[in-house]
Structure formats: C-alpha cells, structure tokens
C-alpha cells in the first residue's frame, strides 16, 4: 500500500463553479481545504484554470475524479492518465480518489456513477484498475463507496460492506468513505449503517464525504448533493470519526447551491462534530493504552 504523504485536516468544500467566485474572494477560515474534480481542469484554460490558481494560493487541493470509475471493464486511456498525473503533480495531491462504480464502457461515457455487481469478477477488475491508476499517478488511490438504487446481481453472497472490504483488501488501496452514501443505502436497502461503518478497515480511510439528499414520495432517497445534511448523516459521521480518528471531511454541495454563509453554517456544525468525535477517539485510544 502506497503511504499517504501529506496531511489534510478538518472540513473542506468543493471548488464548484457556482460557488467559486465568492469563496475565492472571501477565503473563509472555516474551510480548511478544497476538493477539485480533475476532469474540470485537465486540458482546460479560462475561468476554471484561473480559479484553480487562485485556490492554490490559500488551500490544499484534494482531487476527486468522476470518470476513472474503477469498476469499468474498459482499460483507461493512457493519454488521460498522463494528463491526470501532471495535474496531480501540479496541485501536490496527497492522493487521488474515484468511485467504486462504472461510468463508461467500450468508449461510451454515461457521466454518472453506476452500480457494480458484488462479485469476484468485479473485485478482480477493480484491483486491476486501481493498480493501473496507482502506477500511472505515483500516489495512493482511494475508492469511494457509492449510493445505489438497484443491484445488478442480487441474491449474491456478499453484503455491500463485505464487498467493499474485499475490494480494499484485493486492491490494497485507500478508502474515501462517503458517510452520506452509507446512510442513503441503509435507508433504501434496509440495513443498520453503524455495523457497516464498524466493519470497515478504518486505517484505510483517508477522506470522508457528507452531503444532503432528496427523499421521494415513495421514500426512496436520491443522492442529489442538493439539500442540507440531515441529522442522521451528522450522527453517522460522528460515529465514524470516533472510530477512524481525524480524517478530512468534505461537505459536498453540487446542486441548489445556497449562499456561502449558509454553507459555512453547515461547515461550522461539521467542525463541532469533527472536534468532538476526534477528541472522543483520542480518549478511547488513551483508554485502550491505559488498560
């Protein structure tokens, strides 16, 4: 497993187009780091390139990909891997994360995060893709668990966290733990999210995501990143941080983006949870050591 070289801590926000101007103008202290989607900056000039430069003046940037989804059967484009590596070098990325899903096949790109069957073939495919990316970019790769609304191969042996553990073990990679996605899946598929969190290898977690979601009339939750974070996700985040210790947490907001002050209110709430939970984690560790 490649070591993570750089520390990124506290609560971050995404450098999203709708938010960038005010964020870069005000540079609020509450925001400790920024996440970027490399696809928005690779081979691109103009406003996006300028915003990237301005953001680097103040914040550590952490890249989070949208298109090297690690379960695709199609090998990745060598040219894009080079472009990605160059961008990661430029921003001094501590790691690179992308999703445990597929988003393209045979050269057709769906531009969404699509579910994988929990199968041995999938585990092997993800391992190959993680190896491929890790070799190309020379830094650790983290996979992110996704929300899913249907299972392409139901009634198999593995539960979602079991499948995730199999992937992490086989690919020997890091985990970007999306706490909101665990919550969303727990509601949509009817399981208890805390045991899910508890069974993960916490030492592999390098980053977390939280977000808001939309609940349909039929009670199905859609992971929109377009609403405030709900209490259930806050509680699950606290539970998670108590077990992992300090890990950078991103507040994802990609739609219905509110005024920055409203988002900063959520950032402050997350910071309180972060500090309380990581202090509790330290107490528990010291307690363990004392015993």
């Amino acid at each position: 497993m490649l070591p993570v070289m750089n520390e990124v801590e506290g609560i971050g926000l995404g450098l999203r187009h709708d938010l960038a101007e005010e964020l870069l103008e005000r540079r609020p202290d509450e925001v400790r780091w920024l996440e970027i989607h490399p696809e928005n900056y690779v081979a691109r000039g103009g406003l996006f390139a300028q915003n990237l430069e301005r953001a680097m003046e103040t914040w550590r940037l952490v890249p989070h990909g949208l298109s090297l989804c690690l379960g695709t059967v199609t090998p990745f484009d060598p040219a894009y891997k080079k472009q990605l590596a160059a961008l990661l070098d430029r921003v001094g990325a501590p790691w690179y994360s992308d999703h445990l899903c597929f988003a393209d096949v045979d050269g057709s790109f769906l531009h969404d995060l699509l579910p994988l069957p929990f199968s041995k073939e999938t585990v092997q495919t993800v391992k190959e893709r993680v190896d491929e990316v890790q070799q190309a970019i020379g830094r650790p790769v983290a996979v992110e668990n996704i929300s899913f609304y249907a299972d392409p191969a139901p009634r198999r042996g593995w539960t979602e966290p079991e499948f995730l553990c199999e992937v992490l073990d086989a690919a020997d990679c890091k985990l970007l733990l999306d706490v909101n996605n665990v919550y969303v899946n727990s509601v949509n598929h009817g399981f208890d999210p805390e045991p899910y969190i508890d069974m993960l290898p916490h030492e592999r977690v390098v980053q977390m995501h939280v977000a808001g979601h939309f609940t349909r009339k039929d009670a199905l939750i859609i992971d929109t990143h377009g609403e405030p974070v709900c209490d259930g996700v806050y509680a699950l985040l606290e539970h998670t941080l108590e077990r992992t210790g300090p890990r950078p947490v991103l507040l994802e907001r990609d739609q219905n983006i509110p005024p920055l002050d409203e988002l900063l209110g959520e950032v402050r709430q997350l910071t309180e949870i972060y500090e309380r939970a990581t202090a509790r984690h330290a107490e528990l560790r010291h307690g363990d050591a004392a015993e």
Partner: protein
Amino acid sequence: MSELGDIQRAFARMCFDRAPADADLDRLHGERERWLIYRSMVRSRLFAMMRSGLPKTAALLGDERFEAAVADYLEAHTPRTRFIREVVHELVTHALPEWERDPALPHLGDLARWEDTKWRVGAMEEREAPAEELDFERPAVINPVLETLEVTHRVDKDHLAPPTLDEPHLMLVYRKPGGSRLFTYVLNDVGARLFRAWCAPDRSCADGVRAVLEGLGRDKPTPRFLEGMASVLADLVAQRVVLGSPPRL
C-alpha cells in the same frame, strides 16, 4: 464471457437507446422502475449540459425538437468523451448536417456553430504567444486562444431571424491573453482575406496585403481599401487578436 461487461453494456444501451429494450432491463434484474431512475439521471444530466452550452440554439429549436436531436445523438453516437463539457461539440457535429438543411431556420447551422465555438474557446487552454510591438514589415503573432468560423448570418446580433448576408463573413471567437471573457469579432469578405493573410507565420503583414490585393485582382490599393485595412488592423491589435510581431532573436 464477462458478466461484468455484459451488465455494463446492457446498462449503457438502457440509458442511450431511444426506448429501453426489455432484454436489457431483464439483464439487469430487479425492479425496472429503479433502473429507469438511472436512465433518467444519465439523460437529464447530459441534456442539461447540452442546453447550457447551446442556450440560443435550444431556444430556437424549441424543447421538443432540441430533445429529439439530443435523443438521436445519444442513440446513434453516444457520448465518446470523459469531459462532459465536450458533449456539446459532439451533439453539434452530429446534428449539424440536418440543422444546416433546415429551410425554415436558415441561420440555425450558423447559430449552433457559433455557440459551440464559444463554448470550446471558453475552455481552451492558455498558450504562450510571445510578441513585441507589431512591425508591418514582419509577420504578425495571432492570439492562439481563438477560433474562426464562416457564417452567412449575423447570429451574434440576432439569433432569432437574422437576414442572410450578401457574402460570407468570418467570425473570430477568442479570449484575450490571461482573460476568461469571450469575444466575437466579425470580418467581412475583404477583412477575412486580410486576417487570413496575416495568419501566415512566415509572411510579413505587408506581403499579406499584397497577396490579398492580387487575389482581388487589383494592382494598387484604393484609398478606401487602405483606410479600411488600417481600421481593421488597429481594431485587431486593440482587441488583442493580433498580439504583435514575433520577438527578434
């Protein structure tokens, strides 16, 4: 045979075909309604991106026709790019032959190409183009963050019903060095000939003008030609389309 590959291909067809096939939905197991949520999410994200890149084209076509064009592109072509912004260009490339033949909207092709060009130039990478003050007896350095398109309608002035021009005009779509704002500058036939002549990297601006005059079948420039040329060149320099002359070694 790869089960994973089968599932992914069925999924892509389920999302991109004009109507999802029963066989593909069966291949995915489970509740069809849940899979159709994915189809809706995939398509609505792509529709939104194409609409935001081509707002005036979409408005001119109307919802039904624009969505039919997108649906046709998705089924026949499918997005072939990992950069979602580039689906705008893919759609225009796919739909342009039909749009250019539309007798009811003769300017539709020009409008779509202009919006697509603006969208692409807005994202073009900044490129170095060192230059010193323009010397008319030397070549010009042209702004590299620029694309041209020939049009027969001034869709930049009126996207609903622009009159047909007597002669094709050349649109320059560009960003100024270090800037992010987009500009469109339009040249008539003679202006376009001059601009193209000044784009030649190994010919002086003066020789370019001589070549244009020769192409127009004239021995000497008229005062009106000289006045027009000077005005265009001054404008192009002021607009940072012409950046100067190459630095002397």
